[in-house]
């Protein structure tokens, strides 16, 4: 489902030089697999997620997600890929403040070639029900708790029936109880057949994932890889 080969990504270090963040990352994630990538802050987890999700196009190497080679897509193709093939869940929820929960969930539909119709609304209600937020669909984010906001964000990510869910520190802004509820939700979604890739620095996420990878020094290694263990 996800394949990355020799991924390299550098940032300018502010002195004219380059700071490597991803230094030859190889990754294979199978269909319906739940993978967690762990690593300390600044290790390049989010960068890796953005590259895999088609948000960052400035990299070296090959990336293929859901059978789509990202390097072959132009801006419109990448937008369509993000709209239909994948869903993003961010640490800070990233909901639009003046939109209600259901309008936030409908946001991907605005970039669909078809006009927003009853089918879209029905789907939005369906995913809100799935995450347990249908009762608060008309509330704006300011009227929701952190956990509720993240549930709405997850509903938005699920709206277009994505093949892969990319999650960037999804429990980072939640207390332990709410975080556990969100982790349980990811586990349930995975059991329904969704491919889930989570990047996090929280060890508690590892309990839910089938496979744990660690990102260190710009490279990925399986948790069980003896060479990467300290």
């Amino acid at each position: 489902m996800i394949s990355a080969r020799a991924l390299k990504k550098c940032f300018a270090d502010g002195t004219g030089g380059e700071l490597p963040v991803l230094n030859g990352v190889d990754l294979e994630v199978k269909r319906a697999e739940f993978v967690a990538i762990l690593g300390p802050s600044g290790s390049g987890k989010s960068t890796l997620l953005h590259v895999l999700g088609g948000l960052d196009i400035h990299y070296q190497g090959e990336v293929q997600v859901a059978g789509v080679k990202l390097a072959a897509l132009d801006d419109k193709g990448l937008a369509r890929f993000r709209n239909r093939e994948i869903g993003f869940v961010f640490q800070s929820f990233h909901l639009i403040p003046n939109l209600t929960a259901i309008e936030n969930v409908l946001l991907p539909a605005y970039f669909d070639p078809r006009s927003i119709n009853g089918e879209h609304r029905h789907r939005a209600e369906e995913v809100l029900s799935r995450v347990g937020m249908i009762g608060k669909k008309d509330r704006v984010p300011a009227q929701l708790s952190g956990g509720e906001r993240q549930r709405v964000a997850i509903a938005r990510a699920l709206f277009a029936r994505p093949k892969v869910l990319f999650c960037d520190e999804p429990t980072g802004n939640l207390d332990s109880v709410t975080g556990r509820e969100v982790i349980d939700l990811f586990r349930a979604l995975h059991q329904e057949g969704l491919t889930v890739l989570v990047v996090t620095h929280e060890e508690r996420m590892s309990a839910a994932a089938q496979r744990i990878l660690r990102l260190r020094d710009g490279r990925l290694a399986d948790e069980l890889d003896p060479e990467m263990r300290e």
Partner: protein
Amino acid sequence: MTLSSMARLVSLSLRRDRPRAAFSTFGVAVGVGALVFFVALGLGVARVIREKVFPIDSALVDVVPPAISLGSLLGGGKVDQATMDRLATLPNVLHAYRKMNVRVPAVSRYEGAFFGSHLRMGLEILAVGVDRGLVEKDVQLGAFADPNPGEPIPAIASSRLLEIYNKTFAPARKLPQLSPKLVVGFTFPVEFNRSFVAATSDGQVMAERLQIVGISDRALLAGVTIPLETAIRLNRSASADAQTFTAATLVARDPSAVPKIADEVKRMGLQTDDQERRLAQNAGLAVALTTSALALLSVLICVLAAVNIAHALSASVRARAREIGIMQAVGASRSDVRLIVLGEAAAIGLSGGLVGTIGAVLAAAVVDRVSSSYLPSFPYKPDSFFSYPLEVIAGGIALGMIAALSGAYFPSRHAASMDPARTVAE
């Protein structure tokens, strides 16, 4: 992204920051409103000049003998019947009408009833005789021909003279204002070959009566227009020149042929009297220049509105960087982002253009109302000083859109070039 989706996103964005949107819209409305107001004022005043002050028939060419010419010393340069025959056969000339001044002075001494008032007056009168065809469409009473002895001479007064009488003379002398219909039929005495100020010829004073039979734009401004045969008869009776004509009026087949006819007339050793046309053009030019200066000022206001929109949208785009990143994360392309920002500007421009145009129309209505209620009456005072052709309305709205979209050009490019990976991470 469909148009309805874009409209919805634009609406959401504008509603979120209503003060910014309202301020930007206000800027566009002021510029567009000022432009529409001044252009409509210029067009309205130009219309008054064209239709009332100098109602020039664009197909007419007035021909006069040259003021000084070697030809006239040698007997040429006159407008006689032979000249008229030649003028009538010039290319593109439909009709050639003769004009002859009554070449003796005339006065009118009147004392009696005057439309419900008592009037006692004495004034010098100028009279010009013209061919019937020149004014026949304006004749409302009887035939425009030399009358039988004892009958009044049919006379046509100038519509502009009536306007000046109504707006200045009548109010000053507390006389009634007269409509063209009311004036027709009014008869007053005239003594030809008599003057209060000028020397007269040796002949006898000819006592006649003039009867107004019509009001015309083509009539002599400061005098009366009578049948040509009458003018010839009066001149002959006063032993004045009754052979040569004072002027001729040619009617062109088409206004576009007037310059060619004028050239032909000059080649014949004659001149064209385009004083009125020049006055109209000069007045029109003065109005156009004033209007242009005010319109330029208004366009500058629109430019300032565009700059304000550029600043406001740039600030908005910076403030919404994360939101734009979110939209890109869920499927917005760079062109979608750009369209949303341009859509916001278009909405501001459209509403600003509409508000400005409506405001200009309302302001014009207020000015017209104040003018009709509080401004004293004066000659050619119009019911409205403004003219609003569809092009001005559409142009105002289009200008609002252009100003707003121009202002949004760089902010929209900036928004589209944002790196979503960076903005969602911030």
